[in-house]
């Protein structure tokens, strides 16, 4: 009898849980958006919801690899995702992305030509750019008196213990490769090894490796000089005017975040409608003005504030963009990158 009582209690508990979990309203059409945190202006999303009488569920991931692992392992309930450039390529190779129907996205014509037909997704079959940036050097002019022009400047003895690097093997090894005049996505083992040997001399100067909060470290003057994304640099500059940003003469890595639709998405049409809505010049301007990232939408330029259009870190020059290179999928060599990175950081 008593045993029964216990089971009844547990059963009741489980039922309560099921009821709680199952009580989401299903009357409205929903768009399951899976993106970076705070990547959209919520008012613009609200506008989309009101105009189309739909609900947008905004779920969050923190990095590309988490997104990939989750989609691969069967997390298939998303209609629209935002992978970065190299991840789009990986996902296409693994057959995880649906083909976009550009006919449903007439506003695609507003995207700047530079960002159409990218190397990682020829013909924009699976993706459309959302925003982009370039990895360059940020430095604080209070402490760094020389003009910074080259990646080699990071190696200077003067900044020992004050250098910040991105916590990312492809970015950092790619940077050392660019310094040596090679491609940042090389699969040549000798080049990779040489770049890592060069980095071994830099690592003792490093204050910290960081990706997510590297900008706080620049802002607070913990680090004097380091690798930083252009968009983050704009952010730092707004809080600390002493910080400057440069795309070194050897060139830097360009990255982008994109719209893509996973295979098997339940609401592909609505996802395409959303992309088209966001590419509308007015919506686009409002959205990027609020999140502070660079807007690839050429038609939106006239809707942006002067302040936004004048910001050199958000709107990089053609000259700067001209010496950039995408990170491409390196296939099997990712193992080598990972292993050398582990060795580099553990000092073995």
């Amino acid at each position, binding site marked *: 009898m*008593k045993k029964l009582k216990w089971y009844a209690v547990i059963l009741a508990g489980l039922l309560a849980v099921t009821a709680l979990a199952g009580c*989401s309203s299903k009357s409205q059409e929903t768009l399951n958006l899976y993106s970076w945190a*705070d990547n959209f202006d*919520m008012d613009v999303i609200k506008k989309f919801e009101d105009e189309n009488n739909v609900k947008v569920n*905004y779920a*969050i991931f923190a990095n590309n690899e988490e997104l990939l692992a*989750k989609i691969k392992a*069967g*997390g298939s309930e998303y209609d629209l995702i935002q992978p970065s450039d190299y991840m789009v390529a990986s996902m296409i190779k693994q057959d995880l992305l649906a083909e976009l129907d550009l006919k449903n996205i007439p506003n695609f014509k507003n995207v700047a030509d530079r960002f159409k037909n990218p190397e990682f997704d020829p013909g924009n079959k699976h993706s459309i750019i959302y925003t982009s940036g370039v990895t360059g050097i940020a430095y604080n002019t209070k402490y760094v008196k020389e003009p910074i022009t080259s990646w080699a400047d990071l190696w200077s003895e003067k900044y020992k213990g004050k250098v910040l690097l991105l916590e990312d093997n492809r970015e950092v090894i790619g940077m050392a490769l660019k310094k040596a005049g090679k491609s940042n996505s090389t699969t040549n083992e000798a080049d990779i090894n040489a770049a890592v040997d060069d980095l071994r001399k830099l690592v003792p100067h490093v204050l910290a490796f960081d990706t997510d909060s590297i900008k706080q470290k620049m802002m607070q003057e913990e680090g004097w000089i380091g690798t930083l994304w252009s968009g983050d640099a704009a952010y730092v500059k707004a809080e600390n005017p002493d910080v400057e940003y440069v795309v070194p003469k050897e060139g830097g890595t360009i990255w982008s975040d994109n719209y893509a639709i996973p295979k098997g998405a339940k609401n592909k049409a609505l996802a395409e409608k959303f992309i088209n809505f966001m590419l509308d010049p007015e919506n686009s301007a409002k959205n990027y003005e609020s999140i502070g990232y660079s807007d690839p939408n050429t038609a939106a330029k006239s809707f942006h504030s002067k302040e936004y259009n004048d910001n050199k870190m958000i709107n990089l020059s053609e000259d700067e963009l001209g010496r950039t290179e995408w990170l491409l999928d390196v296939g099997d060599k990712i193992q080598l990158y990972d292993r050398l990175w582990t060795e580099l950081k553990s000092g073995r």
Partner: protein
Amino acid sequence: MKTAQASKRHPWLSIHSFLLMAFIYIPVLLIIVFSFNDSRMSTSWSGFTWKWYSTLFDNRTVMEALSNSLTIAFTSTIISTVLGTMAALAIRKMQNRGKQGVIGLLYMPIVVPDIIMGLSLLILFSQLKMDLGKMTVIIAHITFSISYVYVIVSSRLANMGKQLEEAANDLGASSWQTFRFVTLPSIWPGVIAGALIAFTLSIDDFMISFFVSGPNSTTLPIYIYGSVKRGISPEINALCTIMIVVSVMLIILAQWLLGRGKSDKEKGGSLLPF
């Protein structure tokens, strides 16, 4: 009794305890202070403001995440506390060889790396065609919380003799009565401690929740981990401050409510934690 104990308390003991408590609360105080900071980057002080408290409630993503986190934490704590306590009680009575195996099983969730647990559960759920959502997160949290509750309750049981229970049995108490009036009261502090740990783990879990959550069940840690990239908003500091204040108020309220009815606490045997 109390005064006799108090006299045995060495002053250094009190000093150490208060210092350690201060150590624990220093970051908390900082978070509270920075929730009133005018600057969006919570890095340096730039003036007093209430604005994060008002914008917090308009932030749909945060409020949804908070409500998801609380639902998940309360449900998984209750279920895992019951299951973990049951396991500890049953294993205590075991004598045979299976005992080591069952104990090993119960330790598994503690030792399995989070990412393995998250990914493998995600694969399991997707094989079972279960929709990812609060339900799957709750199941995952119960799975790891059971172990922590078990470990703490069984450390309480390790030092407990069986004489009292045997005496109750001899006096004709049913096994339910023995459990209700003898066993449970004497393990109660262990159960409470176990529940506190389960709640703490659930409200703070990121990696496992990330993998088993669905489009509709973003939890607070998932939101916070994601927003580090853009700088965590001071709204989160405000939220943490509210959570702390509300918890403390609830504790005081509970103490007060339950303290009114009972004047003689020393008798013990109270079934409620306060």
